[in-house]
């Protein structure tokens, strides 16, 4: 089992609530249990093929739709997953609106999982969701993100790949 919760150092603190550090196996089970999960994947995923492979595997195995933010859509075009492009700031806006019916028209989501974003950017998105929605948010990236509900700690790219493999096993 890889340990991804050792380093939860932050550059700054952002308030009273900090996210719970979560291990990959637990994250995997939580994703499987979610009723309306959305996998939000950012453009940084395109910088590492191995990472993209695992993102596709997560979407497939857990059978969850992908919100492809930035230009990550390029990585999903022929991947046979249910992926749609959306701007992440717009997504964050809609996610706080109970009247939004989702990317598929079937209703608002309950769990957001993110991978492949700039740390400072996704943490701001999380800040909006934390304060103005009831969503559960799980970061499975390589930085500790205070504003998520749950997050991996700060880990190296190599450890992240291992952690994602373990997460996939637990889906």
């Amino acid at each position, binding site marked *: 089992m890889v340990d991804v919760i050792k380093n939860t150092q932050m550059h700054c603190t*952002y308030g009273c609530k900090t996210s719970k550090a979560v291990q990959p196996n637990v994250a995997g089970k939580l994703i499987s249990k979610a009723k309306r999960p959305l996998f939000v994947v950012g453009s940084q995923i395109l910088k590492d093929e191995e990472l993209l492979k695992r993102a596709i595997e997560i979407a497939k195995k857990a059978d969850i739709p992908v919100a492809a933010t930035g*230009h990550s859509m390029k990585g999903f075009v022929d991947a046979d997953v249910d992926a749609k492009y959306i701007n992440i700031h717009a997504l*964050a806006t809609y996610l706080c609106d109970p009247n939004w019916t989702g990317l598929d028209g079937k209703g608002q989501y309950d769990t957001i999982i993110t991978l492949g974003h700039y740390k400072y950017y996704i943490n*701001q998105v999380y800040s909006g969701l934390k304060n103005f929605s009831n969503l559960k948010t799980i970061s499975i990236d390589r930085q500790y993100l205070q504003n998520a509900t749950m997050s991996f700690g700060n880990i190296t790219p190599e450890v992240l790949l291992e952690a994602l493999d373990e997460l996939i096993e637990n889906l």
Partner: protein
Amino acid sequence: MSELTTGSFSIGDLENVQITINNIVGAIDKQMEKSDEEMGPTPKPGVSSLRDWDHTIFERYNPIYTPMCDQCCYCTFGPCDLSGNKEGACGINLEAHNAREFMLRVMTGAAAHSGHGRHLLHHMIDLYGKDYPLDVGPTNIIAPNVQAVTGIKPETLGDLDIVLNYVEEQLTQLLAAVHAGQEGAAIDFESKAMHGGMIDHVGMEVSDIVQISCLGFPKSDANPPLADIGMGCIDPSKPNLIVIGHNVAAVTDIIDYMEDNDLSDKIELGGLCCTALDMTRYKMDGSAEDQVPKAKIIGSLAKELKMIRSGAPDVIVVDEQCIRADVLPEAQKLMIPVITTNDKVMYGLKDRSNDDVEDILADLTSGKEPGALLLDFEKVGEIAPRLAMMMSEIRKQKGIKALPTEEELKDQVDKCVHCLACEIACPDNLPISEAMKLAKEGDFTKFEWIHDKCIGCGRCEFACPKDIDIVNVIEKSSQKLIRNEIGKVRAGRGPISDPEIREEGVNLVLGTTPGIVAMVGCSNYPDGTKDLFDIAKEMLQRNYIVVVSGCSAMDLGMYKDEDGLTLYEKYPAKFKSGGLINVGSCVSNAHITAAVIKVAAIFAQKQVSGNYEELADYSLNRVGAVGVAWGAYSQKAASIGTGCSRLGIPVILGPHGSKYRRALIAKPYEDQKWNVYDARDGSEMKIPAAPEFLLTTCETIEEMMPMLAKSCIRPSDNNMGRMIKLTHYIELSQKYLGVMPDDWQNYVRMETDLPLAKRQELLKILEEEHGWEIDWKRKKILSGPVMKSDVSAQPTNLKRLCKEA
């Protein structure tokens, strides 16, 4: 009876008696009456005068908050936990508190620009008097923002004094609203932020008009000269005099002194940030052919620390705004004296303004003082160049060495224990540890890669437990790259002229010129400086008008295309389809909003004076313009962007822009929000969901390209215009996202809106996937579109502008 004017005069026989009139009671009203121009409903609007317009905007464009901190610590009741939108001890909730903070950010920016303008204006009135005429080139609307907001048509420096009085009053009233207690509705803090943003464009316009009129800057010049840019363009063998900041007033004295004393060729004069841009405009009025800008541009804020650490500067002169707070201690380490020239930046230095020049020089060359505060520009003009000559010799003799030697570099790199602390601290989480690993094996290429992404902030060094001088390691590893950092920038040309607007206005409103892309703002890029070049190149090739200013204008010039040319050399500096225009420095941003106002005034004959709301309404519904502030970092960028929001111009920020903590985003799925009136009869008309935001962020430039095209779609597009815009939207989405956009059909009103080359294919998709009815024989759409195509419709959000049905 003749009217009294401001100025000085003597009375007949009374020798030695001179009367000076500075201000005439009621001058503003006089000024406003004087023009035969009709006055709109809101000359000199107060904080609440345009509130209805703001609320109209917010009805569709929701203020979206992404707080940096869930607490508030404004007053001693606090800190209060506001997480989950809870209320603090004073009753304010997280939304309203964030709106308040955003408003404060906007006002800080507006104050920076108008403070700058006030300083320049005082200085120029001192030199030339209040009656000095304004001249910005061929135009009947010298100051569109000033006129639209205040109703004043300024003609002299003195008129601008009156305008700034108004600006300052508004800023005071706005600042008062920040005090704890009072306002509780986020939306009204938002409206105040909009007011601050609008006021900012007035302040900026004043600043730039003053310098254009008094300092011989290009005046709406469609062919201004090219200046050198880049760390590599500075000759280190000459004495280096480096200026940093935004206010060129003191620097003009330096340039003059150097010219008068034959020093121009002997000293390398380089600048960082907007002062640099404005130095290249100084005395450049006239034809480009025979003129060479009088200084070189080193680059933006991101280059400040790197430039100092290089050890090249022999003297540093700073003025105001984006200047690193640690210039003095950093310079001191390398025996570089620092001269501060503005009361906004004094660095704790002794005020030597009234001291003897030789005494000051003696104290600075001996190192007795690390620098001096000099508020007397004539003295700055003499001391800075002389000091550069002297320090160059002294520093050479002392063998001042800045960057590490090869051996020291190796020692530094070997100290790294790969703890990742630097990466967590780095604003862009750059892979420093990995680069250290490779460097230990003698491979420094990763550091070269980091060099362009690194914004030179120095946070990594403070985090490193091993005290490695990481910035120096990056810079030393990249010496080869840095030496080749040489580009070209067109000197800022100032406003867009009336004849240019007259020619291009119709294309902009009908959409046959696909849009204006205004690239503005600072250097806090997410992924290096080249992004700017890539954006501009793509949009220029597609015949958008690209307008640039400030740090964006600089960084754009650092790259060359496949023909070895910068975009400035490749594309004409004209305001026309496919033109690339550098308006100038930060304060020149006002010319961009001014151009939009002028389109409404000149093309659509809209009244300008005191008619802000109608102009903004026109811009939102009919002028396809979008702003890009890819590296926005400052409060000034927040105020510039917010001024655009109030005028109905959408702006996209890079991902760091999310840290402004507030965006204005609409929901395209809220059908009822996408209706406007048709001013011909007051009936409601459906409009496409574009622009989808007035302020937002995005992740990468690849994502932004199709966003830009979509943001330029307006209800007023004719079929040709819509077809052109839709073509770019679809092509850019396919090129950069690999897919067709999933909402392109929402912008189709009839078959002639469809891109010509793809018409057949798209009609098929409309029939099969969207259930539209197509008459295939005539290739016509029979049913499906939710909007009608009617070029004579007059879309407006303002009921009052409608004729009765």
